[in-house]
């Protein structure tokens, strides 16, 4: 019997998990607020970043509503500028950058290593509270005069506007520390806490991607901190670093800013790719194709990613030579990302594919990320970028990568690890329906924006020529449908908490270590040391109807076939 059929037995056994686990081992506010358990911290992060996502989503909907008509629809110029700035700042700094590492990295990383916790549990908790502190500053900035600089804080606009730039910068500065703490913690954990048998090349690919991400977090984020410190110093003390009126150079700010913010794009997308590698392999029941390449390419992308920041500045007046060098480097970093897509396809080849909800999201990811990546070619090529830069083409491109890529992968992870995290199975029907909605509405929202951009519609425009109205309206309709689909996905999961079937230890038949412990895991993750094994040896798992989940295959069963007998 397959997972597919299991859902039809919709017997919603509504009983609390009986064994002691990390969720029910202690109670009360402080058992959460002062916890050092990485799993509880992950849940707090998950809820918090989803809250930020909701806030950023509300701003997005307001933007799309305003753009329904070419002139004023619901708000004035300044309110619109504040709204798109806050949409960008909340989504990038509070949601996408922390999302996968902080929620899924924290939850899964130690368990995948067979460890009890991360290397520095207190630092992990501190990172969470830094996030909260940073978020409070950003919220304070919203209340105290708002923010209208765009999330990019370009000088000299940001040094002269009268919105709360200083408060917001302090917020982002603090968030940067939260990110550094997480990265540092993960690097040390992976170096010191792997079991002896788990060599680097027996690590699941999600861990490789987290490792690459952590390197960027640790190396690039301090640059953002310095940049914002200088910005605050300039605003508060008028020291003249970026403002030409004081002898500064505004373009210098852009170099600083993108030196962090381009690598930050890889902080967002690398762990997303890691999740997709896990899911494609498990639901095709095949080891990932070209494991070593996928692992190395994460590191390669992380390092090359430091060398391409100038591609955001082709029109800034940077010299021709630097534009050409940055364009060439940009193409070179696109190769490893592109090849990963081929690796995923080859993993599916001759697999035994089952379209569970996480797999549907993973396939959506491939579709959307491919569009996001290919449209990047138009922007990496100098001649076309000059026309497309700062238009809706760019807006569409990065939403395909960040939202179609990272967000979709984040949700894929949510549905994949949900049973492990909560001990409950959700309805596959509603899960897939939500996925289909997200996928379709996403394309409806963002595809028209490619056309808008190529036709010359600049980004961050409050008023626009009436000829563009049709495209904007399609996009707005898409945005509402997208919001509705995300709510379907959310309700599917919330519903499962109350009425879902109890999850087995290993519902998907995955071979990485987190599936060897009960769902939800006990406080210290494993009752006994997990068995050594290849994380992609999926044939080691066999479906057991008694458990309505998978268990290790015993030797005699293994001889029969390499086929998946769960059918």
């Amino acid at each position: 019997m397959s997972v597919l059929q299991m859902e039809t037995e919709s017997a919603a056994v509504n009983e609390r998990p009986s064994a002691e686990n990390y969720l029910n081992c202690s109670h009360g506010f402080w058992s959460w607020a002062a916890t050092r358990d990485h799993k509880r911290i992950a849940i707090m992060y998950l809820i918090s970043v989803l809250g930020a996502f909701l806030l950023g989503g509300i701003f997005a909907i307001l933007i799309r509503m305003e753009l329904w008509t070419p002139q004023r629809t619901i708000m004035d110029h300044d309110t619109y500028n504040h709204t798109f700035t806050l949409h960008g700042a909340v989504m990038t700094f509070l949601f996408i950058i922390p999302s996968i590492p902080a929620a899924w990295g924290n939850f899964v990383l130690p368990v995948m290593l067979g460890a009890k916790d991360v290397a520095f549990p207190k630092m992990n908790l501190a990172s969470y509270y830094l996030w909260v502190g940073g978020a409070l500053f950003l919220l304070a900035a919203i209340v105290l005069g708002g923010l209208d600089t765009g999330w990019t804080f370009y000088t000299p606009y940001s040094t002269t506007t009268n919105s709360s730039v200083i408060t917001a910068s302090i917020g982002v500065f603090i968030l940067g520390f939260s990110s550094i703490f997480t990265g540092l913690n993960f690097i040390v954990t992976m170096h010191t806490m792997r079991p002896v048998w788990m060599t680097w090349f027996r690590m699941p690919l999600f861990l490789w991607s987290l490792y690459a991400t952590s390197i960027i977090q640790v190396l690039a984020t301090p640059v953002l901190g310095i940049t914002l410190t200088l910005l605050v110093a300039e605003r508060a003390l008028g020291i003249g670093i970026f403002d030409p009126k004081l002898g500064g150079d505004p373009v210098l700010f852009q170099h600083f800013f993108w030196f962090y913010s381009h690598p930050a794009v890889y902080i967002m997308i690398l762990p997303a790719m890691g999740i997709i590698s896990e899911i494609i392999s498990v639901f095709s029941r095949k080891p990932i194709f070209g494991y070593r390449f996928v692992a190395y390419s994460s590191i390669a992308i992380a390092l090359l990613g430091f060398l391409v920041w100038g591609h955001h500045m082709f029109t800034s007046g940077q010299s021709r030579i630097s534009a050409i060098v940055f364009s060439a480097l940009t193409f070179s970093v696109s190769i490893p990302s592109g090849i990963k897509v081929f690796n995923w396809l080859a993993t599916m080849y001759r697999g035994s594919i089952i379209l569970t909800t996480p797999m549907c999201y993973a396939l959506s990811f491939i579709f959307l990320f491919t569009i996001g990546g290919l449209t990047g070619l138009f922007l990496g090529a100098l001649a076309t970028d000059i026309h497309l830069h700062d238009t809706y083409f760019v807006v569409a491109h990065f939403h395909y990568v960040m939202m179609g890529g990272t967000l979709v992968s984040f949700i894929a992870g949510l549905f994949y690890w949900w049973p492990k995290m909560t001990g409950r199975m959700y309805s596959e029907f509603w899960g897939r329906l939500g996925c289909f909605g997200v996928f379709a509405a996403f394309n409806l929202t963002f595809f028209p924006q490619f056309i808008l951009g190529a036709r010359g519609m600049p980004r961050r425009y409050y008023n626009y020529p009436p000829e563009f109205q049709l495209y904007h309206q399609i996009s707005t309709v898409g945005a509402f449908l997208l919001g509705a689909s995300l709510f379907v996905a959310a309700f599917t999961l919330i519903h499962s908490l109350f009425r879902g079937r109890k999850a087995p230890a290993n519902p998907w038949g995955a071979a990485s270590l987190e599936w060897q412990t009960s769902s939800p895991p006990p406080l210290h993750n494993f009752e006994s040391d997990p068995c050594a094994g290849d994380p992609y040896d999926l044939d080691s798992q066999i479906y057991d109807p008694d458990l309505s989940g998978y268990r290790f295959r015993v030797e005699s069963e293994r001889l029969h076939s390499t086929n998946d007998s769960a059918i």
Partner: protein
Amino acid sequence: MDPKTMMAVSETDGGSFWFPTAGTQIAKEVDGLFYFILALSTFFFLLIVGLMLVFVVIYRRRPGYARKFAPDHNSTLEVVWSVIPAILLILIFFQGFTGFLDMRTPPAETYEIKVVAKKWSWAFQYPNGYIEGELHVPVDRAVKLTMTSDDVIHSLYIPSFRIKMDLVPGRYSSMWFQANQVGDFPLLCAEYCGTKHSDMLSRVIVHPSGEFEKWLEQASNLMSTLPPPEAGKLLYNRRGCAQCHSMDATARTGPSFSGTFGTSQPLADGTTVLIDENYIRESILEPMAKVRAGYRPVMPSYKGQLKDLEIDAIIEFIKSLK
């Protein structure tokens, strides 16, 4: 949505589905590269998504289906699918690079126009010193813009020419183009610059050969031929004052001009000021010297950009508003 409506929308300005009209030779080159990348991307997209769907269908888990052996790596295959895209990328890079050099390398002989951007208007200064808010150029002649900004970063974008360049305060940037079609083309600000970023619009007007010089001469003499209040009104509209100052009593970013002449108004530092000729002149040349209470000090200075005669005309215009 109806594809016909969509095509109709795109054809209103003579453009194609993807682009507005191409007004220069370089625009055509850019479009060529765009379509080349588009063709390659479409091919790879269909290949990837096609394979994905085919695999989902033929390898779907189902009763009686047994997964066959497949290797978990294959060096030849991996090299092939790295090298082929790499070659195509080099091709794209190379075309982008040569197109870019064409865009950035003006011919030896150019007609030079100076551009100053400020929140939220453009000033184009012709070689004879005449300044206007719209860009007039002769057809089939290389035009070079030498540009700077007075306040924050702006970006001059002419979609029909497929060119864009930032205007950075404190330094000069430049760009050039050679329009090969007579007509009117939108000119926009592409770098976010605050409240009315989206209204910082103007036009490029490409004159037929021989007519540009005539236009320039007439326009330059207009100031001296019009009565001062009317010349002032023209300047008010063309030089961006209208973005911030209204002619009726409504306050925009700056105070209204209507009915204030001769009145006393409070300043931000607590004192009051009589609005007379001297005050208006000072406000235009040194706006930060006296800032009206309730307004932000955002008015750009027009020192060196409005001649005495023009300032006089503006004063007469403000006086005339009752």
